[in-house]
């Protein structure tokens, strides 16, 4: 066999992805005494986690002593339309406070209450003010704190490295990975007893997205190709308030904090339309009139919250309906107005980065004019199926945590629950991966033939003479997903998308990379397209299969939730070159937890007495 040049490393635990989940996993693994490598596709500390603004949900009870994990669990399950893996939602609610306090002990500087504790803010879908935060740059604080902790511990970090494939042994355990340094273009092979995927999201398959170029679903694809299952890939969250104009600010998310601090949604006629879209499910805890809603900002005990603070899928659907009804803004969205409701000083103090970003990026002064916003692809609830306690996938030795993992958020994620998700399950994945590595006597000798096959495949795009430009194909994929598998879906369009994806899949094999291997974005995109297509296929097939509307998945032809489909996971798999989706029974919640939920979606039960109406 011809020898192939590559750099070689051996570790106990390999963590792929260095956002919040990956960093937390790597820290845990190292602290468990394992030789640990942390790999990231960008520079260290640039991960998409930095974009999270609002905060980190945890029932610390600093602002509302009534808050506890049970209420947080209930909010999470209800927000997720009961499709969540109940055990993950439980662990998350129980452990999030410890993870926040741990960050504080590592140097994070959260905003404070008057008596010096961590301040918590209100957010859509959370019954109590629950989000620990730092102004509107909480994600950056999380990244820096874990980054500095990781550096302090001396973790080996491999930057600007893309993993192309995972490698398995004959018993089906993962034992390694092949990738390349994006800057130099040289290949790297890792062997490891455990591998943690923490690669984040998938937004780059859609045209309008808040996600960075990195969010191409690499971890989803790597796991599927290795034989793992993905669930609920149809459940994609479109953030209701992404900037749609001007171009320079398109995809930029406007934090829910704008609405928490008084911002309201208006259509082209100037009407506060959200009052027309209060579903029976949330009727009892939502203000009925503008007067009542406005009083809530000052007196949260005696008044109910305004409908602008409903969970984001409710808000996104309302905006979509307004636009469809012809009451949209000039560029196809609606207006978010805080300028006419709060003083410039108040807005600048409460939302400094928002103010700063809009002024500098788009020359829009949010203290003076309303923002033009619309639904933007933001987050995927679905992901790789994992064991709730250990985050191990169906493939032995392969773990997944953070956005790449599925189950925690059900059909819809509450704002603030992702940062805590990263830390709770990042830590658990790192712990379980380390324990496996310590207990395992698996031989991590990699097959040279497999390695060569991966490297040959990765470099094949340079040999595709006269093929298409990968950027053109990417645009086509994004148009397809945006138009046919976007926020509102229907059978005929999904079928059309499925056929189009099959065609794009064939063409993607033949795209051409021009130039050399040194920092060549065109080549990187050719490889990223494989991951994006894997995600697009699973999302489309799952969306066809889930014939109901639930959370982030809205079917025009099945507008109601189907109680039977609440009981199933849509499981995506990759076998012999094909993606398929099968409905399978979901783990059943124990009765003592079910009792915490109060009201399940799809049933017309009246809400319980509002003994603590806030």
């Amino acid at each position: 066999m011809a020898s192939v040049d590559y750099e070689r490393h051996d570790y106990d635990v390999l963590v792929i992805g260095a956002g919040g989940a990956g960093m937390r996993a790597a820290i845990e693994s190292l602290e468990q005494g394992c030789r640990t490598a942390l790999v990231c596709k960008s520079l260290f500390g640039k991960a998409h986690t930095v974009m999270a603004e609002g905060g980190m949900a945890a029932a610390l009870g600093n602002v509302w002593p009534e808050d506890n994990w049970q209420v947080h669990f209930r909010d999470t399950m209800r927000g997720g339309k009961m499709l969540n893996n109940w055990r993950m939602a439980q662990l998350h609610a129980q452990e999030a406070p410890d993870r926040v306090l741990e960050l504080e002990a590592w140097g994070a500087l959260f905003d404070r209450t008057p008596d010096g504790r961590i301040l918590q803010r209100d957010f859509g879908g959370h019954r109590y003010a629950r989000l620990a935060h730092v102004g509107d740059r909480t994600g950056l604080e999380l990244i820096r704190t874990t980054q500095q902790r990781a550096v302090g511990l001396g973790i080996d970090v491999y930057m600007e490295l893309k993993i192309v494939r995972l490698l398995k042994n004959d018993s089906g355990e993962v034992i390694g990975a092949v990738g390349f340094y994006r800057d130099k273009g040289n290949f790297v092979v890792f062997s490891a007893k455990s591998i943690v995927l923490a690669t984040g999201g998938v937004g780059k398959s859609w045209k309008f997205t808040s996600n960075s170029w990195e969010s191409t679903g690499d971890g989803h694809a790597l796991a599927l190709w290795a034989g793992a299952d993905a669930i609920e890939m149809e459940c994609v969250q479109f953030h209701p308030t992404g900037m749609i104009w001007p171009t320079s600010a398109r995809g930029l998310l406007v934090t829910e904090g704008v609405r928490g601090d008084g911002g309201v949604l208006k259509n082209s006629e100037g009407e506060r339309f959200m009052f027309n879209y209060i579903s029976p499910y949330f009727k009892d805890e939502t203000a009925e009139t503008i007067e009542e809603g406005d009083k809530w900002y000052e007196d949260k005990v005696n008044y109910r919250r305004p409908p602008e603070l409903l969970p984001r899928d409710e808000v996104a659907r309302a905006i979509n309906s307004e636009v469809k009804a012809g009451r949209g803004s000039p560029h196809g969205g609606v207006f978010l107005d805080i300028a006419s409701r709060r003083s410039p000083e108040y807005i600048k103090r409460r939302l400094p980065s928002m103010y700063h970003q809009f002024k500098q990026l788009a020359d829009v002064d949010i203290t003076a004019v309303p923002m033009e916003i619309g639904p933007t692809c933001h987050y995927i609830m679905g992901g790789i199926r994992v064991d709730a306690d250990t985050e191990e996938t169906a493939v032995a030795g392969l773990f997944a945590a953070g956005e790449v993992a599925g189950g925690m958020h059900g059909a819809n994620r509450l704002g603030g629950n992702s940062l805590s998700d990263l830390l709770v399950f990042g830590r658990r994945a790192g712990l379980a991966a380390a324990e496996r590595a310590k207990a395992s006597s698996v031989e991590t000798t990699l097959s040279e033939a497999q390695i060569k096959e991966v490297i040959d495949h990765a470099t094949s795009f340079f040999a595709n003479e006269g093929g298409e430009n990968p950027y053109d194909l990417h645009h086509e994929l994004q148009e397809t997903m945006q138009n046919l598998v976007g926020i509102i879906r229907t059978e005929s369009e999904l079928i059309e998308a499925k056929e189009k994806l099959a065609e794009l899949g064939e063409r993607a094999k033949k795209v051409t990379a021009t130039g050399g291997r040194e920092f060549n974005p065109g080549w990187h995109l050719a490889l990223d397209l494989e991951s994006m297509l894997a995600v697009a296929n699973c999302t489309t097939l799952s969306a066809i299969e889930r014939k109901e509307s639930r959370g982030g998945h809205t079917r025009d032809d099945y507008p109601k939730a189907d109680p039977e489909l609440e009981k199933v996971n849509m499981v995506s798999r990759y076998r012999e070159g094909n993606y398929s989706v099968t409905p399978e029974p979901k783990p059943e919640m124990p009765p003592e937890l079910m009792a915490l939920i109060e009201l399940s979606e799809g049933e017309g039960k009246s809400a319980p007495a509002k003994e603590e109406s806030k």
Partner: protein
Amino acid sequence: MSAVSTGELLMKLWRGDASGGDFVEYRLPAQEGEVVLDVVHRIQATEAPDLAVRWNCKAGKCGSCSAEINGQPRLMCMTRMSTLPIDEPITISPMRTFPVIRDLVTDVSYNYEVAKLIPSFTPGPRPAEGYRMFQVDVERGQEFRKCIECFLCQNVCHVIRDHEENKAHYAGPRFLARLAELEMHPLDTLDRRAYIAERMGLGYCNITKCCTEVCPEGIHITDNAIIPLKERVVDQRYDPVAWLGRKIRGRPRPMTPADVEPYTGAAAKAARAGQAEAS
């Protein structure tokens, strides 16, 4: 709302690698509401698919797309085309202080090496009821924690921009601000002052404020971080009030080599034993 007038843009992008390179011209139609990075992406998606440029968030939050635009160190994602004289050619070149890898991408590993030398946050024991800090006390440190690590301050700092040899013993403004943040952290107990003066090269900074001027986050690096840090280091030796304060509050723990050697200390060595044989 701003609008770039329609017409043609003439972009001159530096292209090349460590062995050399030059500006390459690209002509393309102007479009409304774009930032420089939007234009670079259009060139990449059409004429030059292999054009190397770093970027991530395109929202001024990750600090990846630093470059020199018409000679000014800026984030490409935060520079609106409408703020540039677009009837003239617009030049974009990589940051000068760091070695070029390819086109607009530079090797910024110097910064990551300095980060490893920063003595970690070292809190005192956690009280049973949890740590308490007050907003007014955390705000000083919060200013520096806004840093997105774009390294533009490092890029313009003349101590290293024109003196490669100083990189070996100078941390640069980004990391002096990080050290100031640690020194101001209400819970931190470590005394890094001698180390800051001797190993981090605080004395090299002669407060020309170039770093502050280019900071996209508007952090007052010189006034709020470096100058107080200089005062603090001097106070350690000469200030009687600081001496009295230490008498009353107790002395912070002096640094030991273990505080700065996670990469060479015994624990790290043990954890890393037996790995990374190159093949």
